[in-house]
Protein backbone atom coordinates (compact mmCIF):
# COMPACT_ATOMS: atom_id res chain seq x y z
CA UNK A 1 0.00 0.00 0.00
CA UNK A 2 2.78 2.40 -0.85
CA UNK A 3 1.36 4.09 -3.92
CA UNK A 4 0.59 7.74 -3.21
CA UNK A 5 0.77 7.06 0.49
CA UNK A 6 2.37 10.27 1.64
CA UNK A 7 0.20 12.44 -0.54
CA UNK A 8 -2.82 10.78 0.99
CA UNK A 9 -1.53 11.18 4.55
CA UNK A 10 -0.79 14.84 4.08
CA UNK A 11 -4.10 15.43 2.33
CA UNK A 12 -6.09 13.79 5.11
CA UNK A 13 -4.20 15.29 8.02
CA UNK A 14 -3.77 18.85 6.77
CA UNK A 15 -7.23 20.21 7.53
CA UNK A 16 -7.89 18.55 10.92
CA UNK A 17 -4.39 19.31 12.12
CA UNK A 18 -4.57 22.87 10.79
CA UNK A 19 -7.85 23.62 12.58
CA UNK A 20 -6.57 22.02 15.75
CA UNK A 21 -3.23 23.81 15.67
CA UNK A 22 -4.77 27.20 14.96
CA UNK A 23 -7.57 27.13 17.53
CA UNK A 24 -6.12 24.92 20.27
CA UNK A 25 -2.34 24.45 20.18
CA UNK A 26 -1.34 27.96 19.12
CA UNK A 27 -3.48 29.75 21.76
CA UNK A 28 -2.02 27.48 24.46
CA UNK A 29 1.52 28.39 23.44
CA UNK A 30 0.60 32.07 23.16
CA UNK A 31 -0.96 32.18 26.61
CA UNK A 32 2.18 30.84 28.24
CA UNK A 33 4.14 33.55 26.43
CA UNK A 34 1.65 36.25 27.40
CA UNK A 35 1.97 35.36 31.06
CA UNK A 36 5.42 37.00 30.96
CA UNK A 37 4.11 40.29 29.53
CA UNK A 38 1.97 43.19 30.70
CA UNK A 39 -0.61 42.74 27.94
CA UNK A 40 -4.03 44.13 28.85
CA UNK A 41 -5.95 42.53 26.02
CA UNK A 42 -7.43 45.92 25.19
CA UNK A 43 -4.56 47.32 23.13
CA UNK A 44 -2.11 45.39 20.94
CA UNK A 45 0.92 46.89 22.69
CA UNK A 46 2.72 45.10 25.48
CA UNK A 47 6.21 44.51 26.78
CA UNK A 48 7.99 41.70 28.56
CA UNK A 49 7.91 41.96 32.34
CA UNK A 50 9.62 38.73 33.33
CA UNK A 51 8.16 37.05 36.39
CA UNK A 52 6.22 40.09 37.63
CA UNK A 53 2.82 38.48 37.03
CA UNK A 54 3.88 35.36 38.91
CA UNK A 55 5.12 37.41 41.86
CA UNK A 56 1.87 39.33 41.87
CA UNK A 57 -0.07 36.07 41.82
CA UNK A 58 1.73 34.73 44.90
CA UNK A 59 0.67 37.88 46.80
CA UNK A 60 -2.90 37.76 45.57
CA UNK A 61 -5.28 36.59 48.32
CA UNK A 62 -8.10 35.96 45.88
CA UNK A 63 -5.83 33.72 43.82
CA UNK A 64 -5.07 31.62 46.90
CA UNK A 65 -8.76 31.38 47.72
CA UNK A 66 -9.58 30.27 44.20
CA UNK A 67 -6.75 27.73 44.33
CA UNK A 68 -8.07 26.30 47.61
CA UNK A 69 -11.57 25.99 46.22
CA UNK A 70 -10.35 24.41 42.99
CA UNK A 71 -8.30 21.86 44.91
CA UNK A 72 -11.32 21.08 47.07
CA UNK A 73 -13.36 20.58 43.91
CA UNK A 74 -10.77 18.27 42.40
CA UNK A 75 -10.28 16.12 45.50
CA UNK A 76 -13.61 16.08 47.32
CA UNK A 77 -16.05 16.06 44.41
CA UNK A 78 -14.72 12.89 42.79
CA UNK A 79 -14.47 11.21 46.20
CA UNK A 80 -18.12 11.89 47.07
CA UNK A 81 -19.45 11.33 43.57
CA UNK A 82 -17.56 8.11 42.90
CA UNK A 83 -18.36 6.65 46.33
CA UNK A 84 -22.06 7.34 45.91
CA UNK A 85 -21.97 6.00 42.37
CA UNK A 86 -20.13 2.81 43.43
CA UNK A 87 -22.66 2.25 46.19
CA UNK A 88 -25.63 2.76 43.89
CA UNK A 89 -24.14 0.66 41.12
CA UNK A 90 -23.39 -2.18 43.55
CA UNK A 91 -26.92 -2.08 44.89
CA UNK A 92 -28.41 -1.98 41.42
CA UNK A 93 -26.32 -4.84 40.07
CA UNK A 94 -25.37 -7.09 42.96
CA UNK A 95 -27.53 -5.95 45.86
CA UNK A 96 -30.65 -7.91 44.96
CA UNK A 97 -32.27 -10.32 47.36
CA UNK A 98 -31.31 -13.94 46.86
CA UNK A 99 -34.32 -15.77 45.60
CA UNK A 100 -34.78 -19.41 44.87
CA UNK A 101 -34.69 -20.32 41.22
CA UNK A 102 -32.97 -17.11 40.17
CA UNK A 103 -29.34 -16.39 39.34
CA UNK A 104 -27.22 -16.15 42.45
CA UNK A 105 -26.25 -12.59 41.69
CA UNK A 106 -28.94 -10.21 40.69
CA UNK A 107 -29.73 -6.56 40.97
CA UNK A 108 -32.59 -5.09 42.93
CA UNK A 109 -35.97 -5.03 41.28
CA UNK A 110 -36.35 -2.20 38.77
CA UNK A 111 -32.60 -1.85 38.23
CA UNK A 112 -32.94 -0.66 34.64
CA UNK A 113 -35.44 1.96 35.74
CA UNK A 114 -32.92 3.37 38.22
CA UNK A 115 -30.19 3.43 35.61
CA UNK A 116 -32.39 5.42 33.22
CA UNK A 117 -33.54 7.93 35.83
CA UNK A 118 -30.14 8.47 37.43
CA UNK A 119 -28.71 9.36 34.04
CA UNK A 120 -31.19 12.21 33.42
CA UNK A 121 -29.00 15.07 34.69
CA UNK A 122 -26.11 13.90 32.53
CA UNK A 123 -27.90 14.73 29.27
CA UNK A 124 -28.90 18.21 30.46
CA UNK A 125 -26.58 21.15 30.03
CA UNK A 126 -24.75 22.05 33.21
CA UNK A 127 -25.88 25.63 32.55
CA UNK A 128 -29.54 24.63 32.70
CA UNK A 129 -28.97 22.55 35.82
CA UNK A 130 -27.20 25.49 37.47
CA UNK A 131 -30.05 27.86 36.62
CA UNK A 132 -32.62 25.45 37.97
CA UNK A 133 -30.82 25.06 41.27
CA UNK A 134 -30.17 28.76 41.57
CA UNK A 135 -33.96 29.11 41.79
CA UNK A 136 -34.36 26.14 44.07
CA UNK A 137 -31.83 27.65 46.51
CA UNK A 138 -33.59 31.04 46.59
CA UNK A 139 -34.10 31.72 50.31
CA UNK A 140 -37.57 33.30 50.03
CA UNK A 141 -39.37 31.65 47.19
CA UNK A 142 -37.11 28.71 46.32
CA UNK A 143 -38.20 25.11 46.33
CA UNK A 144 -35.87 23.97 49.11
CA UNK A 145 -36.76 26.48 51.78
CA UNK A 146 -40.46 26.26 51.07
CA UNK A 147 -40.19 22.48 51.34
CA UNK A 148 -38.56 22.97 54.75
CA UNK A 149 -41.39 25.30 55.76
CA UNK A 150 -43.87 22.75 54.49
CA UNK A 151 -42.61 20.05 56.82
CA UNK A 152 -42.66 22.39 59.79
CA UNK A 153 -39.04 23.51 59.87
CA UNK A 154 -39.84 27.22 59.79
CA UNK A 155 -36.81 28.03 61.89
CA UNK A 156 -34.40 26.34 59.47
CA UNK A 157 -34.28 28.75 56.55
CA UNK A 158 -30.65 29.04 55.43
CA UNK A 159 -29.59 31.68 52.93
CA UNK A 160 -27.88 28.91 50.93
CA UNK A 161 -26.00 30.70 48.14
CA UNK A 162 -26.12 33.95 50.11
CA UNK A 163 -24.29 32.48 53.09
CA UNK A 164 -20.49 32.59 52.63
CA UNK A 165 -20.01 29.45 54.71
CA UNK A 166 -22.65 27.45 52.81
CA UNK A 167 -22.41 28.71 49.24
CA UNK A 168 -19.47 26.55 48.17
CA UNK A 169 -21.14 23.39 49.48
CA UNK A 170 -24.35 24.29 47.66
CA UNK A 171 -22.44 24.59 44.41
CA UNK A 172 -20.63 21.30 44.95
CA UNK A 173 -23.89 19.52 45.75
CA UNK A 174 -25.21 20.53 42.34
CA UNK A 175 -22.18 19.04 40.62
CA UNK A 176 -22.59 15.80 42.58
CA UNK A 177 -26.28 15.72 41.68
CA UNK A 178 -25.55 16.09 38.00
CA UNK A 179 -22.65 13.64 37.67
CA UNK A 180 -23.47 10.66 39.91
CA UNK A 181 -25.74 9.10 37.29
CA UNK A 182 -23.02 8.95 34.69
CA UNK A 183 -20.74 6.97 36.98
CA UNK A 184 -23.56 4.69 38.13
CA UNK A 185 -24.08 3.66 34.53
CA UNK A 186 -20.35 3.43 33.86
CA UNK A 187 -19.70 1.24 36.91
CA UNK A 188 -22.77 -0.86 36.17
CA UNK A 189 -21.30 -1.71 32.79
CA UNK A 190 -18.04 -2.65 34.51
CA UNK A 191 -19.78 -4.75 37.15
CA UNK A 192 -21.83 -6.58 34.55
CA UNK A 193 -18.61 -7.83 32.97
CA UNK A 194 -17.36 -9.42 36.19
CA UNK A 195 -17.96 -13.17 35.83
CA UNK A 196 -20.76 -14.43 38.06
CA UNK A 197 -18.74 -17.44 39.27
CA UNK A 198 -16.44 -15.10 41.19
CA UNK A 199 -19.41 -13.89 43.18
CA UNK A 200 -20.75 -17.41 43.55
CA UNK A 201 -17.45 -18.61 44.92
CA UNK A 202 -17.38 -15.72 47.39
CA UNK A 203 -20.92 -16.46 48.51
CA UNK A 204 -20.13 -20.13 49.00
CA UNK A 205 -17.23 -19.08 51.20
CA UNK A 206 -19.70 -17.11 53.26
CA UNK A 207 -18.73 -13.58 52.29
CA UNK A 208 -21.21 -10.85 53.11
CA UNK A 209 -22.13 -8.02 50.84
CA UNK A 210 -19.54 -5.59 52.18
CA UNK A 211 -16.76 -8.17 51.79
CA UNK A 212 -17.91 -9.01 48.30
CA UNK A 213 -17.78 -5.35 47.42
CA UNK A 214 -14.36 -4.57 48.86
CA UNK A 215 -12.65 -7.82 47.90
CA UNK A 216 -14.15 -8.54 44.51
CA UNK A 217 -16.04 -5.67 42.93
CA UNK A 218 -13.78 -2.78 43.82
CA UNK A 219 -10.44 -4.40 42.88
CA UNK A 220 -11.83 -5.61 39.55
CA UNK A 221 -13.28 -2.19 38.80
CA UNK A 222 -10.23 -0.26 39.88
CA UNK A 223 -9.11 0.84 36.40
CA UNK A 224 -12.52 2.31 35.66
CA UNK A 225 -12.68 4.05 39.03
CA UNK A 226 -9.28 5.56 38.46
CA UNK A 227 -9.97 6.93 35.01
CA UNK A 228 -13.32 8.17 36.30
CA UNK A 229 -11.49 10.01 39.04
CA UNK A 230 -9.19 11.76 36.58
CA UNK A 231 -12.07 12.57 34.23
CA UNK A 232 -14.21 14.00 37.03
CA UNK A 233 -11.30 15.96 38.50
CA UNK A 234 -10.49 17.60 35.17
CA UNK A 235 -14.14 18.56 34.73
CA UNK A 236 -14.32 19.88 38.29
CA UNK A 237 -11.23 22.03 37.69
CA UNK A 238 -12.45 23.28 34.34
CA UNK A 239 -15.65 23.74 32.39
CA UNK A 240 -18.19 22.36 34.88
CA UNK A 241 -17.07 24.42 37.85
CA UNK A 242 -16.94 27.50 35.63
CA UNK A 243 -20.56 27.07 34.60
CA UNK A 244 -22.01 26.39 38.05
CA UNK A 245 -20.04 29.08 39.87
CA UNK A 246 -20.53 31.71 37.17
CA UNK A 247 -24.27 31.09 36.88
CA UNK A 248 -25.29 30.33 40.45
CA UNK A 249 -23.27 32.55 42.73
CA UNK A 250 -23.54 36.26 43.33
CA UNK A 251 -20.65 38.24 42.06
CA UNK A 252 -19.99 35.69 40.47
CA UNK A 253 -17.64 33.97 42.87
CA UNK A 254 -19.21 35.45 45.98
CA UNK A 255 -20.42 36.15 48.49
CA UNK A 256 -17.09 37.53 49.67
CA UNK A 257 -15.08 35.32 47.26
CA UNK A 258 -16.31 32.24 49.11
CA UNK A 259 -17.01 30.31 45.90
CA UNK A 260 -14.49 31.66 43.41
CA UNK A 261 -12.51 29.02 41.50
CA UNK A 262 -9.41 29.35 39.34
CA UNK A 263 -11.15 28.95 36.01
CA UNK A 264 -13.64 31.70 36.91
CA UNK A 265 -10.85 33.98 38.10
CA UNK A 266 -9.04 33.57 34.78
CA UNK A 267 -12.22 34.52 32.95
CA UNK A 268 -12.89 37.57 35.11
CA UNK A 269 -9.35 38.90 34.92
CA UNK A 270 -9.25 38.56 31.13
CA UNK A 271 -12.72 39.58 30.05
CA UNK A 272 -13.97 41.80 32.88
CA UNK A 273 -10.90 43.52 34.30
CA UNK A 274 -8.83 43.87 31.13
CA UNK A 275 -5.79 42.11 32.59
CA UNK A 276 -5.24 39.45 29.96
CA UNK A 277 -1.60 38.80 30.82
CA UNK A 278 -2.34 38.26 34.51
CA UNK A 279 -5.27 36.03 33.53
CA UNK A 280 -2.95 33.79 31.50
CA UNK A 281 -0.62 33.59 34.51
CA UNK A 282 -3.44 32.18 36.64
CA UNK A 283 -4.30 29.95 33.70
CA UNK A 284 -0.76 28.55 33.72
CA UNK A 285 -1.17 27.84 37.44
CA UNK A 286 -4.41 26.04 36.63
CA UNK A 287 -2.58 24.01 33.98
CA UNK A 288 0.07 22.99 36.52
CA UNK A 289 -2.60 22.02 39.05
CA UNK A 290 -4.51 19.97 36.47
CA UNK A 291 -1.47 18.06 35.24
CA UNK A 292 -0.20 17.49 38.78
CA UNK A 293 -3.63 16.21 39.82
CA UNK A 294 -3.78 13.74 36.92
CA UNK A 295 -0.23 12.55 37.55
CA UNK A 296 -0.83 12.03 41.29
CA UNK A 297 -4.06 10.11 40.79
CA UNK A 298 -2.53 7.87 38.12
CA UNK A 299 0.52 7.23 40.27
CA UNK A 300 -1.21 6.64 43.60
CA UNK A 301 -3.79 4.48 41.96
CA UNK A 302 -1.38 2.26 40.13
CA UNK A 303 -1.96 -1.36 40.89
CA UNK A 304 -1.30 -4.52 39.08
CA UNK A 305 -3.99 -5.09 36.54
CA UNK A 306 -6.26 -7.97 37.39
CA UNK A 307 -7.21 -10.24 34.56
CA UNK A 308 -10.46 -12.09 34.55
Amino acid at each position, binding site marked *: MQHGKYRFIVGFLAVPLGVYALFVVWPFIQSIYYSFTDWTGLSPEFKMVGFDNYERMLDDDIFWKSLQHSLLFALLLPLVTLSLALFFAFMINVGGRRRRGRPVISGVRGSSFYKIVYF*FPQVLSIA*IVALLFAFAYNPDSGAINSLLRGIGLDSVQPLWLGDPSLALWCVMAVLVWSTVGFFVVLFSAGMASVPADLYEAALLDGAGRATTFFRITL*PLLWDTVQSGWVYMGILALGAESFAVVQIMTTGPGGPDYSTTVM*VLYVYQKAFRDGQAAYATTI*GVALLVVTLAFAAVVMRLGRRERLEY
Partner: protein
Amino acid sequence: MKTTETPAPVPAESGASVSKADAPAGPPSREKREGTVLNVFSHGILVIWAIMVVLPLLWAVMTSFKDDASIFGSPWSLPDALHFDNWSRAWTQANMSDYFLNTVLVVGGSLVGTLVLGSMAAYVLARFDFPGNRFIYFLFIGGMSFPIMLALVPLFYVVNNMGLLNTIHGLILVYIAYSLPFTVFFLTAFFRTLPTSVAEAAFVDGASHTRTFFQIMLPMAKPGLISVGIFNFLGQWNQYMLPTVLNTDPDKRVLTQGLVQLAVSQGYKGDWSGLFAGLVMAMLPVLAAYVVFQRQVVAGLTAGALK
Protein backbone atom coordinates in the same frame (compact mmCIF):
# COMPACT_ATOMS: atom_id res chain seq x y z
CA MET B 1 -8.13 -14.90 37.60
CA LYS B 2 -4.68 -13.78 38.59
CA THR B 3 -4.11 -12.11 41.91
CA THR B 4 -0.48 -11.21 42.28
CA GLU B 5 -0.96 -8.53 44.90
CA THR B 6 -2.26 -8.16 48.36
CA PRO B 7 -5.98 -7.63 48.43
CA ALA B 8 -7.44 -4.21 49.04
CA PRO B 9 -7.51 -3.16 52.68
CA VAL B 10 -10.82 -4.09 54.21
CA PRO B 11 -12.33 -1.73 56.77
CA ALA B 12 -12.95 -3.15 60.20
CA GLU B 13 -16.69 -2.94 59.77
CA SER B 14 -16.82 -5.32 56.85
CA GLY B 15 -14.36 -7.61 58.58
CA ALA B 16 -16.90 -7.95 61.34
CA SER B 17 -19.60 -8.90 58.93
CA VAL B 18 -17.40 -11.66 57.53
CA SER B 19 -17.03 -13.28 60.88
CA LYS B 20 -20.76 -13.02 61.41
CA ALA B 21 -21.48 -14.63 58.11
CA ASP B 22 -18.68 -17.11 58.64
CA ALA B 23 -20.19 -18.42 61.84
CA PRO B 24 -21.31 -21.86 60.83
CA ALA B 25 -24.81 -23.09 61.60
CA GLY B 26 -26.13 -19.62 62.30
CA PRO B 27 -29.87 -19.75 62.62
CA PRO B 28 -31.17 -19.43 59.08
CA SER B 29 -34.10 -17.26 60.13
CA ARG B 30 -31.83 -14.59 61.52
CA GLU B 31 -29.76 -14.51 58.38
CA LYS B 32 -32.86 -14.16 56.29
CA ARG B 33 -34.20 -11.31 58.34
CA GLU B 34 -30.91 -9.49 58.16
CA GLY B 35 -31.00 -9.86 54.40
CA THR B 36 -34.48 -8.38 54.26
CA VAL B 37 -33.56 -5.41 56.43
CA LEU B 38 -30.52 -4.72 54.27
CA ASN B 39 -32.61 -5.05 51.18
CA VAL B 40 -35.24 -2.59 52.38
CA PHE B 41 -32.50 -0.20 53.45
CA SER B 42 -30.62 -0.36 50.15
CA HIS B 43 -33.75 -0.18 48.08
CA GLY B 44 -34.89 2.80 50.13
CA ILE B 45 -31.73 4.72 49.36
CA LEU B 46 -32.08 3.98 45.66
CA VAL B 47 -35.65 5.26 45.73
CA ILE B 48 -34.63 8.42 47.61
CA TRP B 49 -31.95 9.26 45.07
CA ALA B 50 -34.37 8.64 42.20
CA ILE B 51 -36.79 11.10 43.85
CA MET B 52 -33.99 13.61 44.34
CA VAL B 53 -33.18 13.42 40.64
CA VAL B 54 -36.72 13.64 39.36
CA LEU B 55 -38.19 16.13 41.84
CA PRO B 56 -36.26 19.25 40.69
CA LEU B 57 -37.14 18.44 37.09
CA LEU B 58 -40.82 17.93 37.87
CA TRP B 59 -40.79 21.12 39.92
CA ALA B 60 -39.45 23.02 36.91
CA VAL B 61 -42.12 21.58 34.61
CA MET B 62 -44.85 22.42 37.11
CA THR B 63 -43.55 25.94 37.67
CA SER B 64 -43.47 26.64 33.94
CA PHE B 65 -47.28 26.42 33.91
CA LYS B 66 -47.88 28.79 36.84
CA ASP B 67 -48.26 32.55 36.96
CA ASP B 68 -45.67 34.71 38.67
CA ALA B 69 -47.70 35.30 41.82
CA SER B 70 -48.04 31.61 42.67
CA ILE B 71 -44.39 30.91 41.75
CA PHE B 72 -43.35 33.21 44.56
CA GLY B 73 -46.28 32.64 46.90
CA SER B 74 -46.39 28.85 46.98
CA PRO B 75 -43.56 27.19 45.09
CA TRP B 76 -44.89 23.67 45.60
CA SER B 77 -48.57 24.11 44.86
CA LEU B 78 -49.96 22.74 41.64
CA PRO B 79 -50.74 25.37 39.02
CA ASP B 80 -54.28 26.77 39.37
CA ALA B 81 -54.63 26.67 35.61
CA LEU B 82 -52.26 25.60 32.85
CA HIS B 83 -50.76 28.89 31.75
CA PHE B 84 -49.64 27.94 28.26
CA ASP B 85 -49.10 31.62 27.55
CA ASN B 86 -45.81 31.33 29.48
CA TRP B 87 -44.57 29.02 26.79
CA SER B 88 -45.66 31.16 23.86
CA ARG B 89 -44.24 34.25 25.54
CA ALA B 90 -40.89 32.52 26.04
CA TRP B 91 -40.85 31.23 22.47
CA THR B 92 -41.55 34.59 20.81
CA GLN B 93 -40.80 37.51 23.14
CA ALA B 94 -37.88 35.99 25.00
CA ASN B 95 -36.19 34.92 21.74
CA MET B 96 -36.14 31.22 22.55
CA SER B 97 -36.93 30.50 18.90
CA ASP B 98 -33.77 32.37 17.83
CA TYR B 99 -31.67 30.59 20.42
CA PHE B 100 -32.95 27.23 19.22
CA LEU B 101 -32.21 28.08 15.60
CA ASN B 102 -28.68 29.30 16.42
CA THR B 103 -27.98 26.18 18.47
CA VAL B 104 -29.25 23.87 15.73
CA LEU B 105 -27.05 25.64 13.14
CA VAL B 106 -23.94 25.63 15.30
CA VAL B 107 -24.31 22.07 16.54
CA GLY B 108 -25.32 20.74 13.12
CA GLY B 109 -22.29 22.26 11.45
CA SER B 110 -19.89 21.31 14.23
CA LEU B 111 -21.11 17.75 14.47
CA VAL B 112 -20.68 17.03 10.76
CA GLY B 113 -17.32 18.79 10.74
CA THR B 114 -16.10 16.98 13.84
CA LEU B 115 -17.03 13.56 12.49
CA VAL B 116 -15.52 14.16 9.03
CA LEU B 117 -12.26 15.75 10.20
CA GLY B 118 -11.98 13.49 13.25
CA SER B 119 -12.40 10.27 11.28
CA MET B 120 -9.97 11.41 8.58
CA ALA B 121 -7.26 12.18 11.11
CA ALA B 122 -7.99 9.08 13.17
CA TYR B 123 -7.88 6.79 10.12
CA VAL B 124 -4.50 8.06 9.02
CA LEU B 125 -3.10 7.90 12.54
CA ALA B 126 -4.46 4.39 13.12
CA ARG B 127 -3.53 2.79 9.81
CA PHE B 128 -0.41 4.42 8.40
CA ASP B 129 3.16 4.41 9.60
CA PHE B 130 4.99 7.64 9.01
CA PRO B 131 7.48 9.78 10.88
CA GLY B 132 5.69 11.94 13.42
CA ASN B 133 2.64 9.70 13.71
CA ARG B 134 3.03 9.24 17.46
CA PHE B 135 3.77 12.91 18.00
CA ILE B 136 0.63 14.06 16.18
CA TYR B 137 -1.47 11.49 18.02
CA PHE B 138 -0.28 12.68 21.41
CA LEU B 139 -0.67 16.30 20.33
CA PHE B 140 -4.33 15.56 19.68
CA ILE B 141 -5.11 13.58 22.81
CA GLY B 142 -3.08 15.97 24.99
CA GLY B 143 -5.90 18.44 24.40
CA MET B 144 -8.20 16.32 26.56
CA SER B 145 -6.43 17.08 29.80
CA PHE B 146 -5.54 20.74 29.30
CA PRO B 147 -7.70 23.43 30.90
CA ILE B 148 -9.50 25.03 27.97
CA MET B 149 -9.89 28.34 29.76
CA LEU B 150 -6.13 28.92 29.49
CA ALA B 151 -6.34 28.86 25.71
CA LEU B 152 -9.52 30.90 25.57
CA VAL B 153 -7.83 34.17 26.54
CA PRO B 154 -5.58 34.35 23.44
CA LEU B 155 -8.15 32.45 21.38
CA PHE B 156 -10.58 35.32 21.76
CA TYR B 157 -8.07 37.59 20.01
CA VAL B 158 -7.09 34.96 17.40
CA VAL B 159 -10.76 34.58 16.46
CA ASN B 160 -11.29 38.34 16.56
CA ASN B 161 -8.33 39.04 14.26
CA MET B 162 -9.64 36.54 11.72
CA GLY B 163 -12.99 38.34 11.71
CA LEU B 164 -14.69 35.23 13.07
CA LEU B 165 -15.83 36.64 16.41
CA ASN B 166 -19.62 36.50 16.88
CA THR B 167 -20.18 34.50 13.71
CA ILE B 168 -21.86 31.13 13.45
CA HIS B 169 -19.11 29.64 11.27
CA GLY B 170 -16.42 30.93 13.64
CA LEU B 171 -18.12 29.18 16.54
CA ILE B 172 -18.46 26.02 14.46
CA LEU B 173 -14.71 25.97 13.73
CA VAL B 174 -13.88 26.41 17.42
CA TYR B 175 -16.35 23.70 18.48
CA ILE B 176 -14.76 21.33 15.95
CA ALA B 177 -11.24 22.12 17.15
CA TYR B 178 -12.11 21.45 20.80
CA SER B 179 -14.05 18.27 19.98
CA LEU B 180 -11.17 16.75 18.00
CA PRO B 181 -9.07 15.43 20.91
CA PHE B 182 -11.67 12.99 22.20
CA THR B 183 -12.97 12.17 18.71
CA VAL B 184 -9.49 11.35 17.40
CA PHE B 185 -8.67 9.36 20.55
CA PHE B 186 -11.86 7.32 20.31
CA LEU B 187 -11.87 6.74 16.55
CA THR B 188 -8.16 5.88 16.36
CA ALA B 189 -8.80 3.07 18.82
CA PHE B 190 -11.85 2.07 16.80
CA PHE B 191 -10.11 2.00 13.41
CA ARG B 192 -7.35 -0.17 14.90
CA THR B 193 -9.91 -2.83 15.76
CA LEU B 194 -11.26 -3.07 12.19
CA PRO B 195 -9.80 -5.85 10.00
CA THR B 196 -7.17 -4.73 7.50
CA SER B 197 -7.94 -7.37 4.86
CA VAL B 198 -11.02 -5.64 3.37
CA ALA B 199 -9.18 -2.39 2.80
CA GLU B 200 -6.21 -4.23 1.30
CA ALA B 201 -8.47 -6.12 -1.07
CA ALA B 202 -10.08 -2.89 -2.22
CA PHE B 203 -6.68 -1.36 -2.71
CA VAL B 204 -5.48 -4.32 -4.78
CA ASP B 205 -8.58 -3.94 -6.91
CA GLY B 206 -7.40 -0.45 -7.79
CA ALA B 207 -9.31 1.77 -5.38
CA SER B 208 -7.39 4.83 -4.25
CA HIS B 209 -6.68 5.44 -0.55
CA THR B 210 -9.33 8.16 -0.50
CA ARG B 211 -11.93 5.95 -2.09
CA THR B 212 -11.10 3.05 0.19
CA PHE B 213 -11.62 5.33 3.16
CA PHE B 214 -14.97 6.77 2.13
CA GLN B 215 -16.49 3.64 0.56
CA ILE B 216 -15.07 0.84 2.67
CA MET B 217 -13.71 2.06 5.98
CA LEU B 218 -16.29 4.69 6.94
CA PRO B 219 -19.27 2.35 6.54
CA MET B 220 -17.43 -0.27 8.60
CA ALA B 221 -16.78 2.31 11.30
CA LYS B 222 -20.45 3.25 11.62
CA PRO B 223 -20.96 1.95 15.20
CA GLY B 224 -17.98 3.97 16.39
CA LEU B 225 -19.13 7.05 14.51
CA ILE B 226 -22.58 6.80 16.11
CA SER B 227 -21.11 6.51 19.62
CA VAL B 228 -18.72 9.40 19.24
CA GLY B 229 -21.39 11.36 17.38
CA ILE B 230 -23.82 11.13 20.29
CA PHE B 231 -21.04 12.08 22.68
CA ASN B 232 -20.18 15.16 20.63
CA PHE B 233 -23.80 16.09 20.00
CA LEU B 234 -24.58 16.29 23.72
CA GLY B 235 -21.31 18.03 24.51
CA GLN B 236 -21.81 20.64 21.80
CA TRP B 237 -25.54 21.12 22.42
CA ASN B 238 -24.86 21.69 26.12
CA GLN B 239 -21.69 23.72 25.64
CA TYR B 240 -21.62 26.83 27.80
CA MET B 241 -18.05 28.03 28.31
CA LEU B 242 -16.99 28.42 24.66
CA PRO B 243 -19.99 30.53 23.54
CA THR B 244 -19.86 32.60 26.73
CA VAL B 245 -16.36 33.72 25.82
CA LEU B 246 -16.47 33.80 22.01
CA ASN B 247 -20.05 34.70 21.20
CA THR B 248 -20.95 38.02 22.74
CA ASP B 249 -23.44 39.25 20.13
CA PRO B 250 -26.99 39.01 21.60
CA ASP B 251 -28.40 37.94 18.24
CA LYS B 252 -26.08 34.96 17.90
CA ARG B 253 -26.62 33.47 21.35
CA VAL B 254 -27.03 29.73 21.68
CA LEU B 255 -29.57 28.11 23.98
CA THR B 256 -27.55 27.81 27.20
CA GLN B 257 -26.22 31.34 26.90
CA GLY B 258 -29.62 32.74 26.02
CA LEU B 259 -31.24 31.14 29.05
CA VAL B 260 -28.61 32.48 31.41
CA GLN B 261 -28.98 35.92 29.88
CA LEU B 262 -32.73 35.61 30.21
CA ALA B 263 -32.35 34.77 33.88
CA VAL B 264 -30.23 37.87 34.40
CA SER B 265 -32.62 40.17 32.55
CA GLN B 266 -35.70 38.73 34.26
CA GLY B 267 -34.30 40.28 37.40
CA TYR B 268 -35.52 43.58 35.95
CA LYS B 269 -38.54 42.48 33.95
CA GLY B 270 -39.84 39.96 36.45
CA ASP B 271 -41.18 37.42 33.97
CA TRP B 272 -40.14 34.33 35.94
CA SER B 273 -42.86 32.11 34.57
CA GLY B 274 -41.63 32.81 31.05
CA LEU B 275 -38.11 31.95 32.11
CA PHE B 276 -39.17 28.61 33.58
CA ALA B 277 -41.06 27.87 30.38
CA GLY B 278 -37.83 28.58 28.50
CA LEU B 279 -35.83 26.30 30.80
CA VAL B 280 -38.25 23.41 30.39
CA MET B 281 -38.40 24.03 26.65
CA ALA B 282 -34.64 23.58 26.50
CA MET B 283 -34.68 20.52 28.76
CA LEU B 284 -37.48 18.46 27.29
CA PRO B 285 -36.20 17.70 23.77
CA VAL B 286 -32.91 16.37 25.12
CA LEU B 287 -34.60 14.31 27.83
CA ALA B 288 -37.13 12.93 25.34
CA ALA B 289 -34.38 12.04 22.87
CA TYR B 290 -32.49 10.35 25.69
CA VAL B 291 -35.45 8.23 26.77
CA VAL B 292 -36.05 7.10 23.18
CA PHE B 293 -32.39 6.41 22.30
CA GLN B 294 -31.44 5.44 25.83
CA ARG B 295 -29.23 2.48 24.94
CA GLN B 296 -27.25 4.32 22.26
CA VAL B 297 -26.81 7.43 24.38
CA VAL B 298 -25.45 5.49 27.32
CA ALA B 299 -23.13 3.52 25.05
CA GLY B 300 -21.94 6.72 23.40
CA LEU B 301 -21.27 8.59 26.61
CA THR B 302 -19.58 5.78 28.49
CA ALA B 303 -17.64 4.29 25.58
CA GLY B 304 -14.64 6.54 25.96
CA ALA B 305 -14.18 5.97 29.64
CA LEU B 306 -14.29 2.18 29.35
CA LYS B 307 -11.46 2.01 26.84
